[in-house]
């Protein structure tokens, strides 16, 4: 484990938010499994992953790739970021792509909601 991980993590409020999400979702997961409430267990397991990854991401920032040879060789977010103009252009195309992904998400969720049916969901191939 890189030595500069824990200190910045504890000082980052988003790390604490992630840890809180992990704790809450673990409780939801365990209670959902013990009381056979599928939705609670499902959401608990999903948010457990979300919390773990969010806490990990918060702990890593801003050193995105740590160098074990020399700390000054590490890649920070500010050092590896594209220029201001590129980021400004990305601010224009990214929301469009994100809306398309969300629209696809909503369409697929509505199309395949419910229990699995091999006859209905096979598309003839499964």
């Amino acid at each position, binding site marked *: 484990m*890189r030595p500069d*991980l824990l200190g910045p993590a504890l000082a980052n409020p988003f790390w604490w938010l992630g840890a809180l999400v992990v704790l809450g979702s673990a409780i939801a997961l365990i209670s959902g499994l013990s009381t056979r409430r599928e939705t609670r267990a499902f959401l608990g397991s999903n948010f457990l992953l979300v919390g773990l990854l969010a806490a990990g*991401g918060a702990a890593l920032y801003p050193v*995105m790739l740590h*160098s074990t040879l020399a700390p000054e060789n590490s*890649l920070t977010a500010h050092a590896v*970021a594209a220029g201001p103009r590129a980021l400004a252009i990305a601010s224009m195309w990214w929301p469009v792509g994100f809306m398309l992904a969300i629209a696809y998400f909503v369409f697929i969720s509505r199309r395949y909601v419910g229990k699995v049916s091999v006859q209905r969901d096979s*598309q003839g191939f*499964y």
Partner: protein
Amino acid sequence: MIAIWYGVVAFMLIAYVVLDGRNFGSGMLHWFVARTPEERRQVIAALGPLWSWHEVWLVVFGGALLAVFPRLMASAFAGYYLALMLILWGLILRGIAIEVGGHISDPLWQGFWDVVFVFSSFLLAILFGAAAGNLARGVPLDAQGNFSMPFFTDFSVRGQVDLLDW
């Protein structure tokens, strides 16, 4: 601005891991929860229409990483080249196994693609976990931002620690 973009890229990666993680789990548990060919078809039908939708988030994550943090992508993709090729082949084989496994009603055909599905799911889960572990541990980056590591050595924490080592 950079912190916001970091959050955006992290959000897309988290969305991919949560969504496709379900597919990895289905693949890894495929043989254990589904004993008959009909049950295996049911497991695949549960994620058959959805797997490509989940991988959209991997594509948008990669695209945003290239656009927003290009030097990180250049360093990481060059250093992790073998692992990334294995991830690419795992994704390809998993997709093929899902899509063509049911095309022929033959036990040998479906059995073969079931094996490919399970193996590729395990491979992907292990490699993505190794990537996360390497982020937490660090890699031997030089001043130019390049690094090169063997895939594994003796899986111990002493001596030269490589991609799959602890």
